[in-house]
């Protein structure tokens, strides 16, 4: 925001600083993408553009399978963590115990990923043991494999990781919503669900969709929790990390990193562009209509 007394130089320097910081942070990402399109990979003296490494990655059954697992995990996390985040944000708005809700919701952020993952691993192992004992005692075989490591346990880890972010993103959008509008809708004859769906949701939709995008990106970003909790499948990040640890960065690794970076930037960029274009359009429409309004 500028005012008439802001110095042109100072204003320019602030923008230069901001762009410099963002550029410095993103430079390595763009460099990795740049290398991923080089036929001769990292460190080569010559640069020949190719998409072959991407073809190799997408032709590798194990990598494609890991990509599929990651997508399933991300979708399941979206389907679970986003509604939970939404409900928690609604509870936060209503309750008197706001500090308690925020503390509970954000607590997982303050536990290091390794600690959280190993704790969950131990917890699930013990829980599995307890269920096996109960199953054996009662003769109920169907109880015995509930908490074996697999998709479900990886999903729990993923939910614990992504829920705080979903909660915060939705809460920020919800803070601008006035609950009188829900009451007004009820007063017009709407049920609680209709009031939410017709009146509240359209106003917090941006936050909910942002939370979905965030959870998807976080799911692609996560390696530690899934590595310990996943059981018999691999996610894209797990494969990438294990490749880097075992054989170092290969041309395929660069292509995998490129896929993830391009995917994430496309999602975030699309949301940003859509939001900016929409807000610009609404403002233009409002200006066009507002001209003849007379105060009464």
């Amino acid at each position, binding site marked *: 925001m500028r005012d008439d007394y802001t110095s042109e130089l100072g204003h320019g320097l602030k923008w230069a600083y901001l762009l410099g910081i963002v550029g410095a942070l993103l430079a390595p990402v763009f460099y990795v993408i740049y290398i991923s399109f080089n036929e001769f990979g990292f460190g080569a003296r010559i640069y020949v553009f190719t998409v072959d490494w991407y073809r190799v990655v997408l032709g590798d059954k194990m990598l494609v399978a890991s990509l599929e697992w990651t997508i399933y995990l991300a979708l399941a996390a979206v389907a679970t963590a986003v509604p939970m985040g939404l409900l928690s944000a609604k509870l936060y708005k209503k309750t008197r115990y706001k500090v308690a809700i925020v503390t509970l919701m954000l607590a997982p952020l303050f536990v290091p990923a390794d600690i959280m993952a190993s704790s969950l691993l131990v917890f699930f192992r013990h829980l599995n043991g307890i269920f096996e004992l109960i199953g054996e005692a009662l003769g109920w075989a169907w109880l015995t494999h509930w908490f074996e490591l697999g998709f479900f346990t990886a999903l729990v880890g993923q939910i614990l990781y992504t829920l705080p972010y979903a909660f915060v993103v939705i809460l920020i959008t919800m803070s601008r919503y006035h609950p*009188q509008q829900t009451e*007004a809708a*009820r007063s017009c004859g709407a049920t609680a669900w209709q009031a939410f769906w017709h*009146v509240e949701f359209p*106003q917090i939709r941006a936050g909910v969709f942002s939370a979905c995008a965030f959870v998807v990106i976080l799911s692609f970003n996560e390696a530690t929790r899934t590595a310990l909790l996943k059981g018999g499948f691999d996610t894209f990040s797990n494969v990438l990390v294990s490749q880097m640890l075992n054989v170092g960065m290969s041309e395929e690794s660069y292509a995998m990193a490129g896929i993830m970076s391009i995917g994430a930037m496309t999602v975030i960029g699309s949301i940003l562009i859509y939001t900016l274009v929409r807000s610009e359009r609404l403002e233009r429409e*409002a200006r066009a209509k507002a001209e003849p*309004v007379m*105060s009464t």
Partner: protein
Amino acid sequence: MSAQPDTAVEVDGLSKNYGPVAALSSVSFSIESGQYFVLLGPSGGGKTTLLRLIGGFIRPSRGRVLLHGRDVGDEPPNRRPTSMVFQSYALFPHMSVERNVAYGLKLRKMAAPEIGRRVARMLELVGLAGYEARMPHELSGGQQQRVQLARSLVLESDILLLDEPLASLDAKLRKDMCLELKHIQEKVGITFIHVTHNQEEAMTIADRIAIIADGRLVEEGTARDVYERPRRRFTAEFIGDNNLLHGTVSAIAAEPGGRVKVDLGYAEVAVDATVAEGTDVAAGDAVSLSVRSELVELVAPGGAEDGARQTVPATYLEEVYLGLTTSHLVRLPDGSEVAVRRISEGGDAAPPAPGQEVRIGWKTPSARLHVE
């Protein structure tokens, strides 16, 4: 349609507690169909709580709400024959004016042409025809409140609840909207229950006024009743510009139509027994007298002292010009101040000098007696 009982709203022993705090304590009253009923009182007195209990937005801790004779205690807002206009922020910002007004009708699955007709008629009624495509943020505060009104009225609910609907408007707009509300209510003929802390607003529109303070119903009556004949001391203090004088009952006339005498400490004044009717007082009781400032006058030196008028000594303090009226402030011997209000006229005689000893007086029936 079957004939509805005359009583639109009956509130019976209604209480609402939030933990140890009593927001509303055992309030009972009834409102006739087609009345413009105003809940008036200071902020935090429980008016909005009472309105929200009637609308079904909160559950009572005790007591009942009957709408047209039906106990609606367990019914949510969408199943009550009420609709509500809120103080502010209640228009749906992502919907145009037309969609806002049509919302309730769409929920009722009414045919689109009929919805269009009703919305157009209602926007015409509130003076917003031609504004259908506007978004709420493109409207002024007054226009937004009219859209809210149209959105509620179009539902043809039997009872309209208005929660300080004019509070966010400037003084001029509030005055205009007040009259418009009254005219609209007369046109549609449904029951309006209007919450406000503004007594001028209440007097302008109300058929009946209920004074609510500290979670209790203080007094109820027509605008004229509560202004001219307040039964409770709180009402006298809250409504109009009343002067309060404190004293003890010194004598009560035995004969019917006699007078109650009150010793103010520096003078003894009489109050008509008819004024004290219903007030259970005995000699020695501490009481208050209220006299509206426009009924008090500065008594000219040597002015007639007769039984029809009560006078007390005072010291003149100052004149305050208020435009339409001019207030003359005097101090009584017990230190309390009294205002004497007059219509400002060009040829007003010069007021007494500050510090000058004067007498003030009022016609005996003008004073009201209140038990402490």
